[in-house]
C-alpha cells in the first residue's frame, strides 16, 4: 500500500525543529553541569607508574635496534622477568582490578554522577516527547523499511495499514539522540558529556585496561628480535662523507 500521505508543514515547524532545538540546548546544559560537577581526580601513583612503564617498554620495542645487544637483553630481562619484572602481572592480580574499581567509593560516586547526568535528561525528554508529541505521524523516512520496524518506529500511531516509512516523533527523538553527537563535538570541542554510547563502552572495558596492556607489552617485548642497526650506519656514514668530500 504505497500511497503518499501529505504531511502538514506545520508538523515540521512545530514538532521536528523544536524537538531538535530542545535537544541541542539540553545537551549544552548537560555539558556545563557536568563540568561544574566534575570532581578533581587525584591520579593514583600506581596507575601513573604503570602508564610510564608502558611508555618506556614501548620505546624499548620501537628503538631496540639502536642499542647494543647486551643492553637490550638486560633491559628485556628487567621488564619481563618472572619474579619481579615490571611488566609481569600474575594471574590473580588481573582479576582484582575490576573488583577493586567497584568497591572504591570515590570511583563509584564518580560513575554514579556521570550516569545520573546522562539518564535524567534523557528520561525527562523522552517523557516530554511522549506526552506532547504522540498520536500522529511526524515524518517520512526516505527509504523503505520492513514490517518488523513497525512496533519500534510507529509507537503512537494505532493504524496498522500506514506504511512503515511514516514514523512517529519518538523515532525522531532517537534519531536526534544519536545523531547530534557530531554536532556537539563541533560546538563544544572534543570533550563533551553527551557521548553516551562511548561512555557505556568505556565502562565495561575499564577494569581490565591496565593489566591487559601490561601483558600485551610483555608479549610484544618477548617477540622482538634484536637486530643491531649500528653496523649499517658505518657504511651510511661512509657514503655521506664521500658525498661531502667529493
Amino acid at each position, binding site marked *: 500500500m504505497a500511497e503518499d500521505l501529505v504531511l502538514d508543514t506545520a508538523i515540521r515547524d512545530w514538532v521536528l525543529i523544536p524537538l531538535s532545538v530542545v535537544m541541542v540546548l539540553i545537551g549544552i546544559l548537560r555539558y556545563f553541569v557536568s563540568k561544574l560537577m566534575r570532581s578533581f581526580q587525584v591520579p593514583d601513583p600506581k596507575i601513573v607508574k604503570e602508564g610510564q612503564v608502558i611508555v618506556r617498554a614501548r620505546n624499548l620495542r620501537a628503538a631496540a635496534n639502536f642499542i647494543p645487544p647486551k643492553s637490550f637483553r638486560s633491559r628485556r630481562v628487567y621488564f619481563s622477568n618472572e619474579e619481579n619484572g615490571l611488566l609481569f602481572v600474575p594471574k590473580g592480580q588481573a582479576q582484582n582490578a575490576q573488583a577493586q574499581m567497584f568497591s572504591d567509593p570515590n570511583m563509584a560516586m564518580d560513575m554514579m554522577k556521570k550516569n545520573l547526568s546522562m539518564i535524567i535528561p534523557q528520561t525527562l525528554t523522552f517523557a516530554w516527547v511522549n506526552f506532547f508529541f504522540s498520536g500522529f505521524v511526524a515524518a517520512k523516512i526516505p527509504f523503505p523499511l520492513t514490517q518488523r520496524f513497525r512496533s519500534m518506529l510507529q509507537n503512537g500511531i494505532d493504524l496498522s495499514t500506514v506504511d512503515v516509512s511514516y514514523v512517529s516523533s519518538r523515532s525522531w527523538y532517537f534519531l536526534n539522540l544519536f545523531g547530534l553527537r557530531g554536532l556537539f563535538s563541533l560546538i563544544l570541542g572534543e570533550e563533551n558529556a553527551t557521548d553516551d554510547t562511548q561512555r557505556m563502552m568505556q565502562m565495561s572495558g575499564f577494569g581490565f585496561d591496565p593489566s591487559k596492556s601490561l601483558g600485551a607489552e610483555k608479549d610484544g617485548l618477548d617477540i622482538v628480535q634484536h637486530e643491531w642497526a649500528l653496523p649499517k650506519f658505518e657504511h651510511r656514514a*661512509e657514503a655521506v662523507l*664521500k658525498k661531502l668530500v667529493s
Partner: protein
Amino acid sequence: MVSKTEETQLNRLENQVDNGGGGAWEYLCLVRKLKVRRSEKVLKYGLSILNDSRKRSALGPEEWTLYEQVAIAAMDCQCLDVAKDCIKVLQKKFPESKRVGRLNGMLLEAKGSWAEAEKAYSSLLEDNPLDQVIHKRRVAMAKAQGNISGAIELLNKYLEIFMADHEAWRELAEIYISLQMYKQAAFCYEELILSQPTVPMHHLAYADVLYTLSGLENLQTAKKYYASTIDLTGGKNTRALFGICLCTSAIAQVSKGRNKEDKESPELHSLAATALEKDYKQRASDKLGLLTSALRSLKT
C-alpha cells in the same frame, strides 16, 4: 630541545625587541613555549609590560602567566624584591594555589634558606605526591647545595615512578659523568637513545662515554655511534669526525698485537680526516696546519 627554525625565530624577535621595535609580548610567549633561559631580557621586557597598566589590562587572563614568568626570571637574576612583589600579587589573586606555593618555595630556594624551602616542598608533596615539577626542584636544591649523591638518590627515586621523562634521564647522565661513573652514564644515554633515536646529540654523548670507558669492544661500539651521528647530521658534526679518527687510532693501538682487521669500513677514517680538513679550510684556515699535524700523529 629547540629546533633550528625556532632558534632563528627567537633570535629575530629578540633583535627586534632589543632595537625598540615592539613585539615584546610575542617574544615572551615564545620564550615560555620553548622553555629557554633568557632571564635578563624576560625580566626587562616583562616588567615594562607589567608596570604599564594599560598594556597589563590588554593582556587579560594571560597577565597572571606573565607574573609567574617574570617572578621566575627575577629569581634567576637575583632581584628578589621584584620576585616577591610578583608572588604577592599572584597570592592575592589565587590564595590556595599549588602553583603559587611552588613559587614561594622557589623564592626560599633563591634566598638560600634551604631548610625552609625543603619544608615547603615536602608539605606541597604531601597534598600532591605526583607533582613532577616539585620533585625536580628538590633534586635541583640538592645539587645546588653540593649534595650530589643526595641528588642522584632523589633523581633515581623520581625516575622509578616517572621513567618516561627523558629530560630527567639526561640530567642523571650528566651528573654521573661529573662523578666519572661512566657505566651508569652509558645506561642513561641508552635510555635517551631509546626514547629519541633520531636525535644525534644522544648518539654523540653515548659515543663519548664509550670512548672514555675504553676497551676494544667499547671502542668499536663508540666508532659505530660516531658514524651514526655523522649519518644523522649529514657529516657536519666536527666532534663526530674527530671521534672517528680518535677511535680508529685507539682501536689500532689496542689491537696492535692481534691481527684484527677492521673489515667493515676501511675508508671511514681517511674520509673523516678529509672532511675535517675541508671543514677547517672553510671555517678556520689558520688552524689547518695544527689539524694536519694532529691527524698525522694519529695515523701512526
